[in-house]
């Protein structure tokens, strides 16, 4: 899987011009996703999670734009495609679902029509075939009595069912990659557990590559094979779920885990606070972007940005604590 990833993002850089200067929202992001692999991407607001998804699909809102890097899907660089060719990739090869299923669905079109529209637009299926396939899709995402649900409008459905419909639409064209941007954040925990289980099952059964974006490390741990931790537009840590959660290496990952209330924490324990705030991306600090808040900061950290170095196969960390070899004399 590591030899031929389904999707490889290499040194992706995305910038937004602003009155205060150019904000680099993605600062050389690299990651891979294999077939049947669920990759969880975690980080706080503004760390670049959603911008990574949008850059992959080339739907970065203007005036932002991808200024460097490659997005390789099955050996083809998506950033080099014409807009027309890219339109054939969106939905068909890479599909996306969003945080607010209510906002992602059209409120005045029935559920059935929204699915058959997608099928007919991409596959020129007949009306009858599209209907049959829509029922199959709704059944696949766990909606009871799917034939009866075709005529329902989104507002008649609960949030959990709306998200199931959005997943059914995303699956309509049998994509290779599914990007799920905070798909369970707006849902109740018992419904969240159902949707996580559904996404996990679909990833394995269909051999999808899943990029699961969330601020919730707990949710990612339930669904993902690998976790990528983002900070200030960079990947700061990447590894298997067990490795990242049980032996976090980057000081930011460690702090994030300790700041999190869990069901295991003792009540009297004070939650760890991460001092300071995330940097202004239009005017970032020199060196490592986390160094002003880092409890393990060293002199070199304020001078040079650490590379995302491979510690062992499948395990990468961007921190000078672990990369003495590449420290250049200052």
């Amino acid at each position, binding site marked *: 899987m590591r030899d031929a990833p389904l999707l490889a993002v290499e040194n992706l850089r995305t910038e937004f011009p602003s009155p205060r200067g150019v904000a680099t929202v993605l600062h050389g992001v690299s990651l891979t996703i294999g077939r049947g692999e669920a990759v969880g991407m975690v980080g706080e607001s503004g760390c670049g999670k959603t911008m990574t998804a949008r850059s992959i699909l080339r739907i970065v809102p203007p005036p932002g734009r991808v200024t460097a890097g490659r997005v390789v899907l099955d050996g083809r660089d998506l950033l080099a495609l014409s807009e027309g060719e890219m339109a054939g990739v969106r939905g068909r090869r890479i599909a996306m679902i969003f945080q607010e299923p209510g906002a992602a669905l059209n409120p005045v079109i029935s559920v059935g029509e929204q699915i058959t529209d997608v099928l007919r637009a991409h596959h020129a299926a007949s009306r009858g075939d599209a209907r049959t396939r829509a029922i199959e899709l709704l059944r696949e995402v766990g909606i009871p009595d799917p034939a009866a649900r075709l005529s329902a409008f989104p507002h008649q459905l609960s949030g959990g069912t709306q998200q199931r419909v959005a997943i059914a639409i995303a699956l309509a064209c049998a994509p290779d990659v599914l990007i799920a941007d905070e798909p369970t954040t707006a849902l109740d925990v018992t419904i969240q557990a*159902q949707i996580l289980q559904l996404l996990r099952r679909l990833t394995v059964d269909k051999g999808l590559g899943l990029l699961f974006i969330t601020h919730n490390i707990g949710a990612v741990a339930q669904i993902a094979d690998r976790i990528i931790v983002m900070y200030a537009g960079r990947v700061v840590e990447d590894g298997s779920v067990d490795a990242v959660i049980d032996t976090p290496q980057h000081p930011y990952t460690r702090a994030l885990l300790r700041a999190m209330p869990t069901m295991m924490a003792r009540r009297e324990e004070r939650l760890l606070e991460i001092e300071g705030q995330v940097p202004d991306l239009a005017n970032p600090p020199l060196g490592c972007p986390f160094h002003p808040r880092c409890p393990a900061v060293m002199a070199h950290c304020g001078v040079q940005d650490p590379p995302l170095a491979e510690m062992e196969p499948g395990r990468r960390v961007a921190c000078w604590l672990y990369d003495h070899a590449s420290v250049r004399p200052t």
Partner: protein
Amino acid sequence: MRAVDGVSFSIPVGGTLGLVGESACGKTTTGLMLAHLLEPSAGSIVFDGRDVTMLRGAALRRFRPNIQMIFQDPYTSLNPRLSVAEIVAEPLRINHRGTRSEIDHRVRGLLDAVGLPAEVARRRPQEFSGGQRQRIAIARALALAPRLIVCDEPVSALDMSVQAKILNLLRDLQRQLGVSYLFISHDLSVVRIVADVVAVMYLGRIVETGPAEAVFADPRHPYTQALMAAVPDPYKRSGVTPLPGEVPSNINPPRGCRFAARCPARMPMCEASPPSLHEIEPARRVACFLHHAIPDQDAVGRGTAA
């Protein structure tokens, strides 16, 4: 429709009651009634031994400072046209608490208490991050030195590292000021950190209540058990079986136990009548026939449709 139906609990002086449950279970409605922002159609609210449910006019105005509120979304709960100082001073002005300079002095003290530097006073809410806005909202809630603050999902809109700071701040303030909290949240891992007593709601009713430590260590109601199992915990990665189905509508709720349709331990009697919230051991009450066979006579008599 009964958004909240026969809910009873008490909040310890200087302590925190955590009210947990999922969307539409009635937690916010309960909080609004306590803060006198909604009027209950039946039942009573006893504050410091005094029935305050039916207060009106001047008596209600005199009472209101005792109970203040913090809302979930600090982007909509602060008036964007007022400065931070004006926002925090507003409750003091409305209640004629001192001269202009006395109020200014108190505002500076409040900003300091919530960890904001004095320079922020002239700025407007939109210049601040979510965490700082929530600090402003907390300063406003503290202005009248309330005995009780209703905190409705106060950290749900915040990033993890900011959430920790606000939870620590709320806890520090409670220790210093002896204020009580009704802490409403859908997030059990957060409630576990802050609550002394916990009440779990499902579809307008309390299904379990007791000391937080006891309930979290040994949940008795099947819904509490399922809710706790569903909280995604990074250190507990063995997949749990999710609770099937969804919360039914409370416009025409089930006749028996409202959780019966989703309950893994359902028995025939559960669908016939609702269980009462019954004390199963000192300070612990559960509404479930697994633990006692006492139906809720009140609810049976009332029937179902509202």
